[in-house]
């Protein structure tokens, strides 16, 4: 894979923007809420701008890792500060930028412990960005954990519905995942005997025996799979989504779960390709169970956020199924689905967050006729729902299409099951839309203000990105393809 070093450290600038935002917020007095929010918006805007720029500036003909930065960090242990992005990393960076920026805007009206909230969000997002760009196993793990532990306080302080239970469960589950990942990383580093944590050096074919690869892949798959919501390790996820405050749900479902899938891709599949091929049938099985299970459990929920939570389990199953096909189309679809699902859930939670803030309920039975009460806010919700169903011209349609086409080739039975489950997903999402948005207008919600243009800005951004990539999916596929084709060519 060609490495192209960056003339300017764009990737580090993204991290620096996050750290700078964090430090500025820490040193601002807690009463200056306006300033804190502006600092957050500006810094997150910078990260979005840079990630968008990188997405456009990436040379697709050249491929490989670009904008690479490399500094020796702890030479005696072979740790390097090594960043670079390829066709897998860039969509994720862009997604993080979008969700981060829109998440900050969504929380514009919050008043409770503003300073700490934004400081923790910045810490979390620093970890997420770092994870998507790091090419050194040490840093990948560090960023991974940095992105997890702020979640505890974010949910426990600002959340709702059984928040302390959810926060504890989520944190313990996710860190149990890292309890498998860290030994896995050390195991590979030691067995390679190269005294390096460099991902590219360790992914040279033939470095690990098939047995080692199978073992390490399993560690990575379960470890990261917990975060990706792989059935049966998903139980933290709906509870966590429901309890988290809006912006955290957005970042959590939108970006954080992608870290899990990305980790499987970046660590498991890159370092242990033989292990990946060996365990692919298991991945496909668990993914299909997740898709079907998520769909049916979602059917019986009474809380809108739970519905979205279980639909996430189902949709992340599609990512897993795509990865399990070991094919270009499947991988393309999986990465695209990560991107599309991130945008979709962000929009879902963002629009629902507004409705919840005004009506103070997210129980399906209590809501109704919202389209008459607040037509614009509900409109965003419906767009999100349509994306979730996979309506053509919206981003996730293409992703799901690609995954299912390749799944049919490799796993016909699983593919069929998954598509049937998708119909069930469509059913329960439409049912929610019908109950929440249509029907007679509720008296007690009459007169609630609809979302203003300014407050609607984050949703407008999300909707437009979903539509753009839905209309021009090649924008994304061409990018992902620069990584998938060489990736599969390397396979023995």
């Amino acid at each position, binding site marked *: 894979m060609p490495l192209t070093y960056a003339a300017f450290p764009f990737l580090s600038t993204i991290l620096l923007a996050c750290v700078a935002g964090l430090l500025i917020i820490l040193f601002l007095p807690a009463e200056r809420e306006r300033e804190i929010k502006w600092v957050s918006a500006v810094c997150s805007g910078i990260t979005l701008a840079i990630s968008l720029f990188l997405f456009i500036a990436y040379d697709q003909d050249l491929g490989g890792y670009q904008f690479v930065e490399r500094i020796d*960090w*702890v*030479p*005696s*242990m072979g740790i390097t500060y090594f960043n670079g992005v390829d066709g897998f990393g860039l969509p994720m960076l862009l997604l993080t930028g979008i969700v981060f920026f829109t998440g900050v805007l969504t929380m514009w009206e919050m008043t409770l412990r503003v300073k*700490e909230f934004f400081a923790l969000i910045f810490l979390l997002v620093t970890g997420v960005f770092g994870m998507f760009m790091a090419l050194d196993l*040490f840093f990948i*793990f*560090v960023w991974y*954990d*940095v992105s997890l*532990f702020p979640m*505890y*306080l974010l949910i*426990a*302080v600002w959340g709702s519905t059984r928040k*302390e239970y959810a926060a*504890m469960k989520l*944190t*313990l589950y996710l*860190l*149990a995942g890292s*309890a*498998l990942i*860290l*030994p896995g990383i*050390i*195991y590979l*580093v*030691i067995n390679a005997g190269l005294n390096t944590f460099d991902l590219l050096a360790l992914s040279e074919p033939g470095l690990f025996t098939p047995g080692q690869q199978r073992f390490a892949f399993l560690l990575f798959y379960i470890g990261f799979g917990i975060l990706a919501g792989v059935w049966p390790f998903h139980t933290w996820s709906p509870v966590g989504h429901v309890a988290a405050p809006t912006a955290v749900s957005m970042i959590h479902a939108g970006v954080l779960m992608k870290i899990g899938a990305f980790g499987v891709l970046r660590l498991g599949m890159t370092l242990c390709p033989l292990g990946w091929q060996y365990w692919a049938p298991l991945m496909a099985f668990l993914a299909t169970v997740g898709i079907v299970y998520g769909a049916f459990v979602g059917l019986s929920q009474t809380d809108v956020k739970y519905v979205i939570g279980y639909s996430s389990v189902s949709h992340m199953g599609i990512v897993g199924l795509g990865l399990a096909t070991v094919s270009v189309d499947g991988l393309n679809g999986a990465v695209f689905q990560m991107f599309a699902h991130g945008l979709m859930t962000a929009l879902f939670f963002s629009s629902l967050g507004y409705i919840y803030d005004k009506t103070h309920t997210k129980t399906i039975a209590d809501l109704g006729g919202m389209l008459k009460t607040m037509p614009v806010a509900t409109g965003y919700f419906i767009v999100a729902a349509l994306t979730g169903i996979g309506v053509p011209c919206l981003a996730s349609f293409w992703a799901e299409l690609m995954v299912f086409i390749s799944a049919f080739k490799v796993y016909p039975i699983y593919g069929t099951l998954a598509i049937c489950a998708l119909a069930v997903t469509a059913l329960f999402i439409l049912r929610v839309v019908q109950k929440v948005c249509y029907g007679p207008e509720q008296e007690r919600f009459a007169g609630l203000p609809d979302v203003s243009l300014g407050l609607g800005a984050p949703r407008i951004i999300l909707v437009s990105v979903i539509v753009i990539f839905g209309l021009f999916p090649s924008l994304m596929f061409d990018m992902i393809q620069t990584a998938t084709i060489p990736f599969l060519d390397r396979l023995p």
Partner: protein
Amino acid sequence: MNAMIFAPELYALCMSAVFFGFTLTRPNSRRDFLMALTFAAVGIGVCLTAIPASGDLFRGAYRVDLFSQVFKTLLFMGLFLVICLCSELKGIEERLHSEFYLLLTICTLSMMMLVSSVHLLTLYLALELSSYSLYILVFLRKREDYGVDAGVKYFLIGATASAVMLFGFALIYGAVQTAYLGELLRILPTVLDQPLVIFGLLLTLSGFLFKLAVFPFHFWAPDVYEGAPNQVTAYIASASKVGAIAVLLRLVSLTGGNSEYLAHALAILAIITMTVGNLSAMVQKDLKRLLAYSSVAQAGYILLGILSMNPAGYTSVVFYAAALLLMKFTCFMVVVKVADDGRNLSVDGLAGLHKRSPILAMALMLSLFGLAGIPPTIGFTGKLLIFTAAIEKGYFVLVLIAMINVVISLYYYLLVIKAAYLTEPKEALPDLAISPPVKALAGGLVAAMVVVGIFPTYVIAVARAVARLLLA
């Protein structure tokens, strides 16, 4: 005798002489505190300048080398940090303040001698001296019902452990006819297949396992932590652990790294220690008891590094000793400052800390995350080093068990963090009056934990150089 290479010990001796003088005068706690602070600060400087020193003293019974000097510096830093917390010694009667500093200094002095001892007898003497000063320090608690209870328990278990250790010394001496560690290093690896030697070595180690609160010698820890004055607990949890770790390293390295029996025995102890520590900590209501059990668990992780018996393992333990000093001290700084009248602090007593003193809450959160081994803190880097060393030796399962323990430990650390950040006090409590120097200290500790965690190169280099001496 070259006085220069003995300078740190001589300095500590002078310091204790001064405080002995103070005990004869009218009590004046302000004077004592300022003197102690100045002395300790200068002492760190003395230790630092003495780092390059090396040589043998007292007919080869006392060795000064990089290993001992680095640990002496750590010990003096620990003393300095603990003295920083003593501006208001509410837990101890005022007339005893000079004695408190005197004993603290003597204890540090004896532990400095401990890390330099290379003869079984000097080792024993130094260890007993430090233990006896600690026994008395625990007794100093103003509320006698706490202090006496804890002190007696500490004394009884400690005396038993040192008797066992002495027996171990006798066995080893009987088997190899020498008490010099240097010669033991040469002879022991050749006779390690004798049950007598292994047994003697294990008994010997038990004295230090007691100090480190390793199962089955950990029962004193929660009671002593709870009963001792908060500052003394801080000292026991931070500086005294560093001394114990240093001696354990010295002793275990004597086997030359190829004793299967010893490694297996230590592995079993490590697993039980960390599991018992973590499981017991989950149900604690008193913060000091909780931290005591967390210390027990930490001792288990440290054993994991020691039993790897390879250069990477020794490096990791040296690094972790420094990390533990910082993290544990930070926790106890919060305990001392929040329990401003010297009382014991329950976990619920932290309620509203994020409002009462944001900097202390942050320091507490970071140190707890460090103890749980979450990046980017010094504790994570330390654990990474330990686990790398253990996997290098093939102890993959041990590491997996340790990681599971880490997840368990996270549960109770999160409960503490929840108390500090989430729980609101039942009645509104005033903001804590934290003086600027303490704020600076807390900020400095936070910075140190994060910076060394992210950029550990230099500390690792020092630890590596220290570890190399053990195998020479």
